[in-house]
């Protein structure tokens, strides 16, 4: 029974040990891939004032933790450890203990133990004079946040390994990066073809990562008299065409194309993409797909990708009103029913040049 295998090897590498082997992935890649994290993940940690006191008698620690916790439960601060090893090695007491949050109005004056711990409920014998400390107000979500938080007061950390790998640039293998580069090169090429016909120089490519197949590629088509035909909207419709639907005709733009879908071979989740007849595909057309686009999508296009249930978006360069990192982070927006991963920086320089050349 596979699922009962002990998680043995996993524990061997200490999580505190940083991996110094920073793989400089393939020399031909002069670009870096950056995850576009949620607001909560990317912000710096915020701090609160709290009172702590030295534990003078180590033997009393567990009793003190029990009694103090009963009075000051720190419910909203479950990520904080109650006791820490004393920072100052030369200190006569080895441990320090978190008592309670400090009220803003008590600035300057540090109350005594008897003011903080009601007599009768806590026997403060074994504690020293309280002092002010800064503690992180929220649980850390990323390793950089964890490192920043722990510098103030020890916190627990449930690491998201994927995010950590993404942040250290180790999420994608050299082969994957080479493939990404090829997809983005196709997006740039199709952008140029669109620009030659007077459209904004933006190109996009839909890929099924399960089969590594390019499903559709398209460019901005605003010159066709429709101001809403941004590259993303064009590509979403091309995928719809591929599945027997679609709303627009791109005959006058031969670079906007799709690969006809082979019945029964639609890649990921084929079973629930087909209806009873086994031929037509359901409308959540981009489920499981990746989009490569030369620049960050606008708010309309970003939300269109939510509606289309995209899996991942890779873009080259940010846009001033961009909705996948710059002005909004629609892909992590709370309350929406679908979230997805976003990475930026793929062939960033070339994508930036594309924009400048055709401006």
């Amino acid at each position: 029974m596979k699922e009962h295998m002990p998680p043995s090897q996993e524990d061997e590498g200490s999580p505190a040990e940083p991996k110094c082997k920073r793989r400089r992935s393939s020399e031909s890649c002069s670009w870096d891939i950056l995850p576009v994290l949620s607001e909560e993940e990317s912000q710096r940690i915020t701090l609160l004032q709290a009172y702590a006191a030295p534990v003078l008698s180590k033997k009393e620690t567990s009793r003190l933790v029990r009694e103090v916790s009963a009075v000051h439960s720190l419910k909203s601060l479950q990520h904080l450890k109650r006791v820490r090893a004393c920072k100052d090695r030369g200190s006569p007491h080895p441990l320090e203990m978190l008592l309670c949050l400090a009220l803003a109005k008590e600035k300057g004056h540090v109350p005594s133990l008897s003011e903080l711990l009601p007599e009768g409920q806590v026997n403060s014998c074994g504690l020293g004079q309280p002092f002010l400390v800064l503690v992180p107000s929220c649980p850390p979500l990323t390793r950089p946040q964890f490192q920043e938080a722990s510098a103030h007061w020890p916190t627990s950390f449930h690491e998201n390994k994927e995010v950590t790998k993404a942040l250290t640039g180790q999420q994608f293998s050299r082969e994957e990066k080479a493939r990404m580069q090829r997809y983005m090169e196709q997006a740039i090429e199709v952008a140029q073809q669109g620009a030659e016909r007077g459209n904004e120089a933006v190109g996009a490519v839909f890929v099924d990562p399960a089969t590594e197949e390019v499903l559709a590629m398209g460019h901005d088509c605003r010159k066709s008299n429709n101001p809403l035909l941004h590259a993303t909207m064009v590509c979403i419709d091309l995928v719809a065409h591929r599945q027997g639907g679609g709303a627009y005709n791109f005959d006058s733009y031969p670079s906007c194309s799709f690969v006809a879908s082979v019945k029964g071979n639609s890649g990921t989740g084929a079973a629930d993409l087909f209806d009873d007849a086994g031929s037509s595909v359901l409308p959540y057309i981009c489920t499981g797909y990746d989009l490569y686009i030369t620049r960050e999508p606008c708010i309309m296009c970003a939300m269109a990708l939510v509606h289309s249930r995209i899996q991942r978006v890779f873009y080259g360069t940010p846009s001033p009103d961009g909705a996948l990192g710059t002005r909004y982070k629609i892909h992590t927006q709370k309350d929406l029913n679908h979230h997805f991963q976003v990475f930026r920086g793929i062939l960033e320089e070339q994508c930036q040049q594309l924009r400048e050349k055709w401006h």
Partner: protein
Amino acid sequence: MGGGEEAAKRQRWMEEAFRMAKEALGNGEVPVGCLMVYNNTVLGQGRNEVNETKNATRHAEMVAVDQVLAWCRQNCKNPVEVFEQTVLYVTVEPCIMCAGALRLLKIPLVVYGCQNERFGGCGSVLNIAADDLLGTGTSFECIAGYRAEEAVEMLKTFYKQENPNAPKSKARKKDSDES
């Protein structure tokens, strides 16, 4: 503005939008209907066509926009000027995507029925209608609450019969995983 007359017209247009929404419901689509009115003339009307086109962006507003564009082509009008004087009447608050599209088209005014708690782009989830976005067209005004209860009822009816085309909810799966 001639108060009474204007109100009566608005009522007629919203009635027509509701008729479109009902048609959508009858066709297994999310029940949203809309009208685009320019100079007292209906230039476009639409209802949700997502399932029909297999394109998740085919919301009522986007369908109506295409009709207005076609009318502009036929009548040799500049769409930029037409949209700048067009009012949208829609049964449900436009979603974030449609709100973005309406900004890009510089539509000045939207009259709508109920709030769109799931996807609303005019205040419910985000306020794309009013946000400061210099590179994304212009902000627009909203008048909300017209026959809101009726619009909500239609949405409830739709979601009760559960969209057979929607993928299974991930949120629900997560809940049951936690034990």
